[in-house]
């Protein structure tokens, strides 16, 4: 009979779990990694095809993945099936929970935008009085950000204002295109800093746990990984009251299994880690597990055309390049309609303009598409969602997933703060575009449903006070010193930034702390 007790059980294999595995195994710690889904093998599972060879000509398979706006017929099979792993919400307040359970999780598919949080996020309450400050600041995380940026080969320029700290970049010294220069000049009266985009280049075209983190862990010989292991609940030692492993079910055979470990590291993705804690009734003496669900407002934006790029005149000197406008509201001035702020992704492209940008059809539409081809200029918003107690998840005991595990009920909605922010973003974006001499073709002020950004964070927020937070500054449970949550669940505020770099840095920091404590036999 196998009765092996691992040093550390890591649940989840994405950026957070992969980083924990790398750090812990490189410290000589034996880890078991469980992942709920299979390994994706491009050579075996994917094939290049034209849309007409697919059953729905490239349309999203009807009725499937209704809350995954990102899905299409080509990628429909990589997302979690909403009927296999359902979740519930009030129809008046929809939530888009966008999930991937393949080995490597959502690290296989992400936009690569790579930003640090600044002290405007870590210490947001100190600036505007809302919410809670994180128990750490940028200085605490900076060394870890720097190492993460090296591993992920983050490109960028050292042009960030204080609200977007610079990092350890592969320097981007490409000159701005003329359209971008015009945008930069036009944005100055609006006090908008325009910076070079920051993105993870990764290696060999991928910036994922499976190619940048897990291979290092596997090389140590200390990592054991199991696919298709759907964790049902954490187990607790009857004598000590501490977590000591988990029950899981094999995804395909339904065989019920269990495994023991001295330490449990949750890295299943914000809401799955929280679901597991709630289903296990573990680590929730504060009553705050599931509370303060946050993400970022996506959807609002402006589509423009650069007139000089029309009628076949677009050149590489005129068009091209990407920029990030970091948050500029409520930094040196104070908005009367919303707290915190938003960033704008700015893109200039020699590319077709989407037909939706013209109120025309048939030959007239084709004429417009011909004329405007190559002149497209876009702005899209990434806005901070405030952490509110009432925005939460809880277990819906009346509904289970395909393995009989109770599902999450999500109760969250945007407030006037987020709607006002979206309105401001589109108004300012349009004004800058017009000042730059661009034609605004279409705009949208309406946010996509919460969750759409795939940046869900919070629900196990960190803090120094065990009554007001779930985790301490090391992503360690206040209740159980051998329980860590290293994914986005630990966030105390969301910020406007893509959270991946922060998740990686927090996981690295927490894992090094854990390794140190284990070597000192404190855990």
């Amino acid at each position, binding site marked *: 009979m196998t009765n092996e007790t691992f040093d550390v059980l890591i649940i989840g294999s994405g950026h957070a779990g992969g980083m924990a595995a790398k750090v812990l195994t490189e410290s000589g710690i034996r880890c078991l990694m469980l992942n709920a889904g299979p390994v994706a093998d491009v050579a075996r599972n994917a094939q290049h095809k034209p849309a007409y060879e697919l059953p729905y000509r490239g349309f999203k398979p009807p009725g499937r993945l209704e809350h995954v706006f990102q899905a299409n017929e080509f*990628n429909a099979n990589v997302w979690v099936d909403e009927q296999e792993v359902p979740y519930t919400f009030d129809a008046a307040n929809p939530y888009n929970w966008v999930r991937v359970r393949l080995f490597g999780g959502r690290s296989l598919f992400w936009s690569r935008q790579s930003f640090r949080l600044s002290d405007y996020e870590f210490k947001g309450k100190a600036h505007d009085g809302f919410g809670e400050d994180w128990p750490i600041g940028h200085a605490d995380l900076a060394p870890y950000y720097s190492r993460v940026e090296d591993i992920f080969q983050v490109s960028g320029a050292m042009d960030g204002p204080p609200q977007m700290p610079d990092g350890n970049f592969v320097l981007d010294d490409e000159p701005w295109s003329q359209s971008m220069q015009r945008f930069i000049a036009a944005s100055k009266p609006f006090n908008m800093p325009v910076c070079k985009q920051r993105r993870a280049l990764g290696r060999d075209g991928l910036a994922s746990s499976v190619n940048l983190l897990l291979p290092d862990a596997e090389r140590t010989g200390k990592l054991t990984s199991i696919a298709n292991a759907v964790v049902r609940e954490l187990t607790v030692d009857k004598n000590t009251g501490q977590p000591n492993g988990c029950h899981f079910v094999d995804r395909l055979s339904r065989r019920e299994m269990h495994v023991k470990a001295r330490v449990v590291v949750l890295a299943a993705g914000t809401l799955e880690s929280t679901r597991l804690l709630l289903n296990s009734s573990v680590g929730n003496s504060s009553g705050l597990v599931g509370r303060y669900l946050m993400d970022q407002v996506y959807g609002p934006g402006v589509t423009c055309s650069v007139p000089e790029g029309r009628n076949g005149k677009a050149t590489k000197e005129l068009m091209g390049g990407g920029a990030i406008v970091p948050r500029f509201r409520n930094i040196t001035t104070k908005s009367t309609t919303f707290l915190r702020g938003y960033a704008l992704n700015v893109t200039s492209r020699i590319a077709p303009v989407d037909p939706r940008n013209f*109120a025309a059809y048939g030959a007239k539409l084709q004429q417009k598409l011909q004329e405007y081809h190559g002149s497209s200029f876009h702005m899209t918003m990434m806005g901070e969602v405030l952490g509110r107690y009432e925005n939460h998840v809880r277990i819906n005991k009346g509904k289970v997933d395909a393995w009989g595990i109770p599902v999450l009920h999500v109760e969250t909605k945007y407030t006037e703060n987020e709607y006002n922010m979206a309105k401001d973003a589109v108004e300012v974006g349009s004004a800058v575009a017009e000042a730059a001499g661009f034609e605004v073709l279409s705009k949208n002020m309406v946010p996509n449903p919460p969750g759409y950004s795939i940046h869900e964070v919070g629900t196990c927020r960190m803090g120094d006070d065990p009554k007001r937070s779930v985790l301490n500054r090391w992503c360690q449970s206040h209740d159980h010193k051998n329980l860590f949550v290293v994914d986005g669940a630990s966030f105390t505020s969301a910020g406007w930034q893509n959270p991946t770099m922060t998740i990686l840095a927090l996981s690295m920091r927490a894992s090094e702390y854990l390794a140190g404590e284990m070597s000192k036999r404190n855990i």
Partner: protein
Amino acid sequence: MLRRDFVRAVVSVSFAPRSLLSQQPANPAPPPPAPVPWTLGLNPKTPLPHTEVVDGITETEQRFFTPVEMATLVRLCDVLLPPIGDKPGALQAETPLFLDFLIGSSPAARKKVYTGGLNWLNSESQKRYRQPFAKLDDTQADAILKPWLRTWMNDHPPPEPHADFVNIAHDDIRTATVNSKAWSEIPSADAQASTTAGLYWSPIEPDIYAESSDRTRIPAHVIAAPKSANAIPAYPR
């Protein structure tokens, strides 16, 4: 043969099979039912039969729209995306019958957008011109459609009635046509859209048990045009 030898021979023959069996494994594999086990033979060198996609060879059976709705849709497709240059139009790409299949397989809210929209087009046509939309000329059809054309961004079609149908249907008609085999066979010039192509992911270790079991259902998708001031539209597909 002596009688004693005969008896010995009979006894040895009757025992022989048992002694032979005793040399076999405890649970021998059953003999194959045929000269070659039936899963044996397929290998990487096996030639793959060449097959075609059905479009352009066979015809989709109309199952969802009523004959009147289909006639309206056919006319709408021809008006919104006629043949341009060498490129086929929506009719040549068999878009109306494809949409009958697609919409007929879709959630109720999407069906309602289409059936409501097609019936509105027809009643509007009857009101203005005393004839069905299917019989309108291009100028008449344009007079009905043009006021409802909007510009919009992805996932945010206009929520107002009629404009939602006209713009969603236009987008669907274009996508279905551009992604058809007929469209792909004519090279796209300049700014003409090209047929989408990409990496198609097959189901990865699909869970056959879950496919066949009774599953709980997520709540119905949200409505296409929510009423509240700050509602978040979703486009049920």
